[in-house]
């Protein structure tokens, strides 16, 4: 980095800080829209497009970026407290976040999530800024063959979840994959398993599936209890101690935050890949290389840190192909592209030559947003966690009505509300009969993506299956994948042997 770039960065940083009066209210707006299922930064920016276009370039940019970051973090709040992941990117958050809330550690979980999100987001923003030209090249190497392996990293989580009851786990996973295959096929758009419903031609919509399987089914379950917090856990009065404890737990695992957020960053820079893939892959990797994999799924802080750090890593990652190549990495980045083009900014290789302040400004806006978010949101964890103490006779109907509306919002089809309800019933039956809803959901979310990359690869090779082993990077990833499956088994056996030795 030469001195002129450094001086631009310093100047842009202080310029951006001057926009605190836009960033702070936008953070709260982002938290709200991120927390409401079905809403997201992308559709909020669309709704507020007239406002965004009316603002000057810098203000519009700061507004969009801080909304994007805050919405990403906001989606984790209901995922932790009431098992409602607001977006597919937060789908892995409740795996360990919600069990923590049920154990009366909702406030702690929120603090862990905020720290992981802010540090993960801030760190990856800095890495992205420093290594932008290199990161932008990732998309040039990660093609459909390589993405198949990345998908398999995430999908192999089904096997981990199924570990306790392999048959039921695999049945749930395959059911999810089958549901994920509903819709028109990727190549010739032939409808499959749509039962004649036009609304299913584009596949099972994610938000209704997500809120149905997690939130609606959970509402059916919690209605049988007085409050979300388990009977054997005394509902605690929220106190600052829990927040600080959460911060301490997260900071102690700083290395975990670092490497899982980097997974998010790398997946985020691949055009078309997104936060849902990143959070599941990060969770799977975190579990695979943990010393205590058996704690995952029962409220383990590392199981919460991994998806939250990763999905915030994606946030900065999606900006890289947008700024360097002019290719938006995700839906929100695509809308940013439209708004910025309206202001006469042309993205692509020439951006940093012609308008360096705009390019660097976007990253600086992200960095400043994360810093201000940390300071403004962390104290709120104490008050947010009150949700878990609301009697379920009020909470469950609110969750159901809230999530059904959330299911409706993305496409505005009544059909999607019925679908959310149907997934809720499916989720409830699954829970009551010992099938894991997360295994179903992984299939629903990652199945169609795996199929897409698989069919592209086969189409490109005229049906030659050996295309899967045709690239060097792909083969390295295959080896890494095999190791991530085998090594935890080896480590597990070794741990078991160590535990057995003293007994003898």
């Amino acid at each position, binding site marked *: 980095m030469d001195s002129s770039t450094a001086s631009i960065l310093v100047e842009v940083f202080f310029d951006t800080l001057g926009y605190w009066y836009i960033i702070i209210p936008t953070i709260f707006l982002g938290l709200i829209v991120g927390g409401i299922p079905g809403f997201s930064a*992308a*559709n909020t920016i*669309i709704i507020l*497009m007239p406002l965004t276009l009316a603002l000057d370039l810098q203000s519009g940019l700061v507004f969009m970026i801080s909304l994007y970051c805050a919405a990403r973090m906001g989606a984790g709040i209901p995922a932790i407290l009431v098992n409602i992941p607001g977006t597919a990117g937060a789908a892995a958050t409740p795996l360990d976040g919600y069990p923590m809330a049920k154990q009366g550690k909702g406030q702690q979980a929120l603090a862990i999530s905020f720290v992981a999100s802010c540090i993960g987001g801030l760190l990856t923003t800095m890495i992205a800024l420093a290594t932008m030209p290199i990161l932008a090249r990732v*998309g*040039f190497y990660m*093609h*459909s063959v390589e993405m198949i392996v990345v998908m398999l990293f995430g999908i192999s989580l089904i096997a981990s979840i199924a570990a306790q009851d392999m048959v039921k786990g695999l049945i749930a996973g395959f059911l999810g994959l089958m549901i994920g295959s509903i819709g*028109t096929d*990727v*190549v*010739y*758009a*032939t*409808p499959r398993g749509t039962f004649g419903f*036009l*609304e299913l*031609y*584009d596949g099972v919509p994610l938000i209704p599936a997500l809120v149905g399987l997690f939130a609606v089914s959970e509402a059916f379950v919690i209605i049988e209890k007085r409050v979300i917090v388990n009977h054997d856990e005394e509902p605690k009065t929220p106190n600052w101690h829990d927040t600080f404890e959460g911060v301490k737990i997260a900071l102690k695992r700083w290395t975990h935050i670092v490497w899982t957020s980097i997974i998010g960053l790398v997946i985020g820079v691949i*055009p*078309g890949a997104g936060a849902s893939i990143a959070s599941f892959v990060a969770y799977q990797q975190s579990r695979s290389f943990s010393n205590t994999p058996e704690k995952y799924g029962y409220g383990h802080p590392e199981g919460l840190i991994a998806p939250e750090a990763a999905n915030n890593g994606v946030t900065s990652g999606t900006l890289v*192909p947008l700024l360097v*190549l*002019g*290719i*938006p990495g995700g839906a929100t980045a*695509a*809308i940013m*592209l*439209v708004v910025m*083009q*309206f202001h006469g900014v*042309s*993205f*692509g*290789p*020439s951006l940093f030559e012609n308008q360096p302040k705009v390019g660097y400004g976007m990253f600086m806006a992200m960095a400043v947003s994360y810093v201000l978010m940390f300071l403004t949101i962390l104290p709120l964890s104490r008050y947010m966690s009150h949700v878990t103490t609301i009697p379920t006779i009020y909470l469950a109907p609110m969750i159901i009505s809230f999530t059904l509306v959330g299911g409706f919002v993305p*496409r*505005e*089809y009544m059909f999607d509300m019925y679908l959310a309800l149907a997934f809720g019933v499916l989720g409830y039956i699954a829970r009551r009969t010992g099938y894991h809803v997360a295994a179903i959901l992984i299939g629903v979310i990652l199945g169609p993506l795996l199929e*897409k990359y698989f069919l*592209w690869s086969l*189409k*490109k090779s*005229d049906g030659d299956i050996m295309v899967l082993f045709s690239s060097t990077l792909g083969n390295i990833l295959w080896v890494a994948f095999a190791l991530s499956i085998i090594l935890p088994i080896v480590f597990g056996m070794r741990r078991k042997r160590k535990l057995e030795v003293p007994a003898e």
Partner: protein
Amino acid sequence: MSMKPMITRRTLLGTGAAAATLTLAAPGLVRASTFPDRNISVYVPTSEGGGADRNFRAFSSVWKEKLGTDFEPGFYPGASGRVGYEIYMGKADPDCYNLIFGNMGPEVLNWAMQNPSFDVNDYFYFGQVDKDPCCLFVGAESPLQTMDDIIAASKTRKLNVGTSRMAHPASIGLLALGEKLGIEFNLIPLQGGKSTVAGAVTGEVDFSVLTSGSVIAAGDSVKTLLVFGNNVVGDRLDNAPSINDAYGMDLPEMLSARAFGIHKKAADDHPDRFETLSKTFKETFDDPKLMDAYIASKGTPEYLQYADVEECEAFKTAMLELGARYKSLLSGA
């Protein structure tokens, strides 16, 4: 002599009934004579915030002044536009208060691949807003930088070509080029314009074909080599020649063309209303405010082009014929 009452009971009742009928019917009669007396609903078969949305808002912002009423868009994306059309044809009343804003290129090609549940002649397009020719382009870092490079490379291997979806005018343009040059290309449907651009830029495919508006928006990350129509924007498409000029072909323009459509029954049952719609639609094109609104919505000014019912119908028919001709290659059937 008793005077005959001027108003008998029967007269009074009859007059009362007539007055009541007239009173109740009046709004209807007034409505019939003052179309439109309420907002027009527009079914858009793509997502909110996309190109069609921007284009619709720009056009309707001027059209509403001519028509004296507002437009209410409803977005029904899914299955390459099929969902929106099915909902429009199946659920919207054919009363001229419900229109569809679609794309006569890729969306009509759908019908050639797979019949919809309605008769494709039960609706027609009555006004084209713009037309955007498709083009062939490579990534800025691609080793294939000219058409000669592409032709030479295709002699050594089958080249993979990104397209937004199989049933797309750009795909037909490429297949026609392949037929002319005796080259077999491998079309890879990358599902959407953004992915199609990204595919060419990152090397997922050797090159891509797409509507040129999206290619212009990609800036200097891509380089256009050939236009499946006329290049009316010059260097914004890298001065790429038209396919007909470059290879002596007579291929009709492969276009994405956005247009307003209406139920045939609505136009048949309410010719006066349809006349009002058509007339004000045409007047909108004569208003210079339209070009300003179109440019403000990031439209390419050269692509803003009016076409009437006959021209739209000819376009639709040509698309259906081309779709039928290339069906086996585009649908795998």
